[in-house]
């Protein structure tokens, strides 16, 4: 509060300085005489030109959904978790299968760990197949991650899998840094428009992730802590 008042005072002083400095009835310190007119006309034209240019930019019809509330997100976490255990993720609304792998594997034990020894909070659900067909099928499910009302799913880096001998290694292929910009309407517009509260949220929701493994009947998985068993 204090800081913002001081900031406001400084801005007010700067503005007062500019207003006085360009002294309306005095000869301007910055512009000589009749060029004032041209500067002002130039500014007006510049603004009009930017309106025109803006119209020429192709616009996509990307419509932002209203922000997901905390309750909706909690609900989704629960549903996602339950569906994961039941193996019904394919039919859960909002869950997305983003990757699948098939590995040939015929050893009795499988080590599961993260590749660069940093923690990856992915739940692993395993389902034993009824046969020993010597293949591991892996599916990666997640949901929609949001920041405010922006879909940031693509910015949340996905896991990748690699089979190295008897170890299945989980990793994040890259660190993703994304900067999103969002144009919001001026407060004098939103004050009188219906959809005003739409843009106000600042919450980020990261969707849960599940790695779903279908393994041969006799295979034993060791080491990985965050594993949900069916």
């Amino acid at each position: 509060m204090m800081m913002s008042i001081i900031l406001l005072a400084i801005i007010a002083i700067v503005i007062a300085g500019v207003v006085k400095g360009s002294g309306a009835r005095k000869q301007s310190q910055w512009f000589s005489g009749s060029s004032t007119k041209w500067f002002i006309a130039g500014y007006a034209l510049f603004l009009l030109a930017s309106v025109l240019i803006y119209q020429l930019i192709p616009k996509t019809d990307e419509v932002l959904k209203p922000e997901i509330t905390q309750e909706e997100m909690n609900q989704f976490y629960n549903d996602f978790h339950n569906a994961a255990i039941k193996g019904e993720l394919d039919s859960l609304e909002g869950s997305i299968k983003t990757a699948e792998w098939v590995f040939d594997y015929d050893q009795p034990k499988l080590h599961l760990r993260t590749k660069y020894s940093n923690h990856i909070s992915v739940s692993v659900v395993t389902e034993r197949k009824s046969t020993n067909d010597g293949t591991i099928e892996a599916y990666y499910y997640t949901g929609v991650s949001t920041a405010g009302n922006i879909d940031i799913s693509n910015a949340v880096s996905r896991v990748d899998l690699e089979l190295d001998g008897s170890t299945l290694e989980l990793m994040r292929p890259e660190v993703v840094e994304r900067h999103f910009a969002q144009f919001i309407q001026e407060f004098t517009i939103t004050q009188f428009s219906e959809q005003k509260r739409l843009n106000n949220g600042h919450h980020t929701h990261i969707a849960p992730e599940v790695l779903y493994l279908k393994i041969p009947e006799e295979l034993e998985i060791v080491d990985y802590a965050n594993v949900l068993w069916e």
Partner: protein
Amino acid sequence: MSVIECKDVTKVYRNIAALKGVSFAIEENKITGVIGRNGAGKSTMLKILAGFLKETSGEVHVLSERPFNNLKVSANLIYVDDQMSLPTSLTLSDILECAGDFYRNWDKELANRLFDYFSFHPKQRHNNLSKGMKSTFNMIIGLAARCAVTIFDEPTIGMDEAVRKDFYRALLKDYIAYPRTILLSSHHLHEVEDLLEDVFIIKEGKTLLHVPLTDFKEMAIGLSGDLSIVNPLISDKEVYHLEENGIKRTYVVVENNFTEAELHEAKVKGVDVSPVSSSDLYVFLTNKTKGGIEDVFNRG
């Protein structure tokens, strides 16, 4: 018809009385000199006429209206002095153009000719002008506006001698071509003497005198001679000035209502009779004491 009428006008600024009851009337189409020492209240009076200030008491009528906040008065009266507030964002030629927009009788051609004559540059700014140039420029506005009442308050401040003369000639010529009521204030009577029809002298916030200039010139007479001879002559006269002029000799300026015979007699008795120039008379009249600065030194 009186264009300007003032009755017992006073003006008090924060307990200081600038005008202490001024009454006068000014006839249409006359050039009147408003003369007074510095601080006598000339400017205050003229600014009241222009509607800048409001009288504290008394009655002021300009063109039969009260001038304060009066648009009719403002449209038909222009007040020109060296303090005229003009925005410096405008060039001089812009200002003339604006002035033309305000005054119906504006003489654009006259303004332009004077502008060229005094070698102004159209792109110049008011704040970059020297004091004399400023006064000259303001004078151009005052003349070209052709207002029924034109007030010049010490218009020649800072002007050099040549420009001053040009100004008075221009004023006179334009007045003859387009007669109007002109008030011209100055603290130098001799400078404006040739122009004036009437003089109006203000002293210490009061009307001292308001007479035609010709009367003013003959109003007083100077007598110099032996104290014992001069004193009886002036016993029933109004003395405007009195100074000791050597031992037992004196010089007095008194109202001139002597008859020819009286003057002749005085001359015979050895009194020097001399006319008094109007500017000397003005100085004597407006001195605080009868002896002027001499009194400061003659304390015995």
